[in-house]
């Protein structure tokens, strides 16, 4: 359909647009402790009354809604449960080269955590592969998920 015969498709205007909001959120005690742990190079999970370990920790048991108990440190390595290859990373994504989003079940945890795996290509990825955290240098860590730069295949770091 074409309503202005004098106007070609190429006359349609285009322009770059940017929308940006920066929120500052209060973390609450549990996420706050988790982020503080990351800054210290530790990954913490929350223990539920049933004895499961939820990573990242939540304030309440995601199944029973009961308040979680103490925070415990879990392993820095684990198993990739599922993954998705990001062939064309967007600006501000964790890595500036193709990478995998992955759900990583850390040793000692009962829930998987979303993070990224730095791998040569999708052929280097598989569900069940073991990965280990690669941290930013201690001085650059601020208490943020990106304090873990990425995960890499175990033995590859």
């Amino acid at each position, binding site marked *: *359909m*074409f*309503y*202005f015969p004098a*106007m070609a498709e190429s*006359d*349609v*205007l*285009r*322009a*770059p*647009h*940017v*929308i*940006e*909001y*920066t*929120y*500052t*959120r*209060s*973390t609450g005690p549990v*996420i*706050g*402790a988790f*982020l*503080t742990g990351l*800054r210290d190079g530790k990954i913490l999970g929350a223990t539920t009354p049933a004895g499961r370990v939820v990573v990242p920790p939540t304030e309440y048991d995601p199944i029973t809604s009961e308040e979680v108990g103490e925070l415990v440190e879990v392993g820095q390595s684990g198993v990739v449960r599922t993954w998705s290859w990001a062939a064309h990373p967007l*600006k*501000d994504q964790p890595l500036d080269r193709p990478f995998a989003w992955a759900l990583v079940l850390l040793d000692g945890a009962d829930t998987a955590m979303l993070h990224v795996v730095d791998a040569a290509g999708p052929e280097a990825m598989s569900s069940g592969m073991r990965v280990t955290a690669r941290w930013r240098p201690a001085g650059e860590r601020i*208490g*943020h998920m990106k304090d873990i730069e990425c995960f890499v295949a175990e033995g590859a770091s």
Partner: protein
Amino acid sequence: MSEPVTMLETPIKIEYEFTAGLAQSRYLKGISEGKFLGQRCPKCTKVYVPPRGSCPTDGVPTTDEVELGNTGIVTTYCVVNVPFQGQSIEIPYICAQILLDGANIAFMGLIQEVPTAEIRMGMRVEAVWVDKKDLGPTMASVKYFRPSGEPDAAYETFSEYL
């Protein structure tokens, strides 16, 4: 450094290319020539500005292009007194719905050159454009609206557009 983490910055940003479409491209080209172009619905004869290419009431393409006047009526307004992040105009300022002469829908515009206490519904205003050499296909080409000095419009003439 040893203080526990209690706050987290979560920036959300999206960068994209906006495609104006045929109707809005016509409108923006009109703006770059210093004029407001609307489009008329062939069924209900209402004139929409900025045009979207179709009539929201009848669902038909708006086929006729209409050049609108440089003057209009303040239908409603808001005096902005609250600062916010990214604000580019000094407060207080007036943001108004403006019904251009010949249009059947009001659009939003900045009102200047009038004390905030004097703004009122029905006030006649005119567009103030940037210098001719600075005109472009952007709403920044319209600097603001200001009182035109004409007598106020009667409420009945714009009550349909509130």
